[in-house]
């Protein structure tokens, strides 16, 4: 890991964009903030703001609709993705943590891995907390964790750049970078602590996780949350670690194309079996199941961490107002 002074983030971005397609979150002027292509000659200043894009980077690797195979003239034909190399510029710590989580889940998924290998990840420490984020409580931010990105931008009085991997080193070769002063870690740690403090007391959230895993949440709590879930699929769509999918067969000339499409465990039909039996028949059961998948200790054992990275997107996207932060506080009795 090497740290450098970065005189111009825009110059770095232009350098990276010259080699491969580069995406950066940008406002669309109509209320949206989306990952958008930035050309090498794009002169717009790099102004990441505090809020992460509402849509995580998940879809770059695990698209919401993706062809898996075709069936033609009685034969199955695999559809392999052929991704062009690309760079994600300005990934937050939470999203990078989520990518690492997804890397484990999709470790043997050729489609995911092909896209993942095509990507250069440029992370960014958060200079201050976004509204509603609680990454500090879950150990996924606000500073980018070790080894999660090829390059990391560190905000401060002036930008600094961490080069973490061989791919990162190759990507910045040709740039004239001066080493950062030796005490760069202290300034970074200061920013991290400050941003983490802005997220408030983690205790009520941790109490919620503890109550959930200790089985101390009474069924009435889940049944009260149930009607507030409209089954919209918003939380699972924006969640950077959700990974469930369903098949969709579309007719083609004389055959069909099988896609996998994002599914949502909040749908009643998700667990419904052919017999009509449903493992999670009530809305409360489904809400309970969802949060167990995000905060259950069993999943932590399997994936090395909780499924939630504290990005706060579900709180923002949930029409019923029962995103992670709200639910954890309620479970913890706060």
């Amino acid at each position, binding site marked *: 890991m090497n740290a450098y002074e970065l005189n111009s983030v825009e110059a770095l971005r232009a350098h990276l964009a010259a080699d491969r397609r580069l995406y950066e979150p940008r406002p669309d002027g*109509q209320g*949206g903030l989306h990952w958008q292509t930035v050309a090498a000659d794009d002169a717009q200043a790099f102004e990441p703001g505090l809020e992460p894009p509402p849509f995580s980077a998940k879809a770059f690797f695990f698209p919401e609709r993706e062809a898996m195979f075709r069936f033609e003239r009685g034969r199955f034909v695999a559809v392999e993705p052929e991704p*062009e190399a690309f760079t994600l510029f300005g990934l937050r710590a939470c999203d990078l943590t989520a990518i690492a989580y997804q890397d484990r889940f999709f470790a043997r998924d050729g489609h995911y891995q092909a896209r993942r290998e095509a990507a250069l990840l440029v992370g960014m420490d958060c200079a201050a907390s976004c509204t509603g984020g609680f990454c500090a409580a879950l150990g996924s931010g606000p500073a980018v964790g070790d080894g999660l990105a090829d390059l990391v931008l560190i905000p401060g009085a002036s930008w600094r750049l961490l080069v973490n991997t061989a791919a990162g080193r190759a990507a910045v070769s040709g740039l004239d970078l001066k080493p950062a002063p030796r005490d760069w870690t202290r300034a970074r740690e200061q920013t991290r602590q400050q941003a983490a403090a802005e997220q408030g007391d983690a205790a009520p959230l941790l109490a919620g996780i503890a109550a959930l895993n200790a089985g101390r949440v009474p069924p009435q709590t889940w049944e009260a949350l149930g009607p507030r879930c*409209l*089954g*919209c699929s918003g939380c699972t769509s924006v969640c950077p670690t959700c990974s469930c999918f*369903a*098949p969709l067969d579309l007719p083609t000339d004389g055959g069909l194309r099988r896609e996998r499409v994002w599914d949502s465990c909040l749908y009643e039909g998700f667990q419904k079996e052919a017999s009509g039996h449903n493992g999670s028949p009530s809305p409360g059961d489904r809400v309970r199941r969802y949060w167990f998948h995000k905060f259950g200790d069993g999943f932590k054992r399997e994936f090395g961490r909780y499924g939630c990275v504290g990005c706060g997107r579900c709180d923002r996207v949930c*029409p019923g107002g029962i995103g992670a932060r709200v639910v954890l506080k309620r479970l913890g009795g706060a």
Partner: protein
Amino acid sequence: MIEVVPSICSYCGVGCGLGLRVQGDRIIGVEPQSGHPVSQGQLCAKGWSTSFAVDPAQRLVHPLIKERGAFREAGWDETLDLVAEKFREALADGGPTAVGVISCARATNEDNYAAQKFARAVLKTHNIDHCARICHSPSVAGLARTLGSGAMTNGIVDIDLADLILVIGADVTENHAMIGARILRAQDRGAKLIVVDPRKTRLARLADWHLQLRLGTNIALINGLLHIIFAQGWEARDFLDRRCADADALRRHVAGIALDEVVALTGVPEDQLRAVAHAYSHAKAAFLAYGMGITQFQSGTNNVIAVSNLALSCGQIGRPGTGINPLRGQNNVQGACDMGCLPNVFPGYQDVADPAHAAKFTQAWNTSLPTAPGLTSLGMTKAALAGDFRALMILGEDPVLTDPDQNHVARSLAALDFLVVVETAMTETAKLADVVLPAAAFAEKDGSFTNCERRVQRVRRAVPPPGEARTDWQILGALAQRLGQPGLRWPDAEAIFDEMVGLSPMFSAMSYAKLDRHHGLQWPCDGEHPEGSPLLHAERFPLGKARLLPVSQVAPAEVPDADYPFAFTTHRLHFHYGCGSMTRRSPLLERETPTGLLFMHPDDGRGMGLREGQGVRVSSRRGVLETRVHLTDDVPAGTVAMPYHFKEAPCNRLTNDAQDPSTKMPELKACAVAVTALPPGQAPRRLEFDEPAHERL
């Protein structure tokens, strides 16, 4: 490579912002627009599933001509020549009263402007209508009589400012989910929530008070509330004096009402009536929203007037956080009305019978215009059955599935000499057409939609239309040219919008550039209100003083009896929309509710020995169908309900076309049915459309 194109959701009238995720020529998904004033970065299940609805794999991509009962693909020139010839024949044969256009509440303002111009300037008829007839025509008529204007008086943001929210006959979290969500958030911050509905909707279950009135007793209930309010002196006297005329007639009318009769009629206990009357009249700001549970009755217009009486009597209008707020069903049903796709008005609600308006449009369009009054869509249906109607164009609607008494609609379409349907997919109505023209979907064209709070918002072309599909206005322009009228050949959607703005005073200060800058603008938007009008009637009503009109309870035209012992109502599901032509393409939404259902109270189910999911036969005086029963206390004992999205169990085979006298709104919300059990294990028969139900079952 992914591009995100900001647009507006094409489902309901809430008008949520969404970003269309485009990969190549396909929309693969959507992203929320966190800064959008209406949806604030949230969407419902339908909005999230948009990519499936517009998927080119299941779309109409070529013009189709029916020959010997089967469709064949044809080129645009051949097809448009044929359509023009058929309209010429129809006009020669029956004159302009024998042709008409049914436009589309899901198409853009620009498409709708083109449709009414095509009817009026090319076909020379005011026979132009759309499905507002069967959703909010009573709102337009009722509020025109009491206030002088029929749209939401306040904005969606006013929910955030209310300390009480009263919902009557609207299943808001399911049908207008982002408004429902906003109501839930308002309740979380301390606002009181009152729901008036015969069904236990999600909101009703979460409400502070749920008045579970008997089906079709809205006026009795509201008059009961008004009786209490006036008897207690809780009315807003100052507001009544300053802003309303003739309060005394209403005061006398409700004074004569016996509360115990209200209780007996509605089934709502007196203490609940008193609590709600007190809460609504004492709220600092009470936001009243209503839906089809008010309008879809033969007393629809009077129901709306009763709602208006309540809000006016308590002064809950004209201020932030208040208002009379009809929730509109389609993404652009407001716009289709605004654009004049109604038989009686030009764009901007300019009366066709007013010679000054007629002269203005005659001059602007440089052609003669009809003087004969136009027909409503049901009027056209009836004329066709009577043999007085020759040719009809239907743009993007599926009346065979969504209108009352389906056999009747199908027979009337069969009685036409010529039916042309402009559609994105092969609907049940399109199957009956002589010619089907492939239309571009919302994501494939530029234009604007107007949501239920009167906000005109831009939609943008994100992908090209599949195959040979074209926008409605392009099709109408090419057809007009063949019929000798070149005035519908616009270069782009913006040119249509600008033409409309130039002719409609209520839109006079709007332009695409301004819409882009402001996240859309709410009409009226004119010299006096250059930034639009979030709040209506703050100073005065269009009528000057508002009118309180005494109305009396009218029972549904058909009530349960020995032969048809269940009260029957219709509703919608969160996961489906309209006739299902969009939502049922999503594997996830289709999995949620794959077939139609009959909702029945468990006590009734027990009485009939029914098990959950068992097949049942449901019959009314008009038709019969088979479906599966879902036992739930969502409905009270004695009342059963069906959603209308499912063509294999089409509840509009059962519904009554008894009509509201002033608007011809059919009574879709109430009729009487009989239910019989199918033997356990026997699957319900899925209906096919080409055979009348009576003969088959």
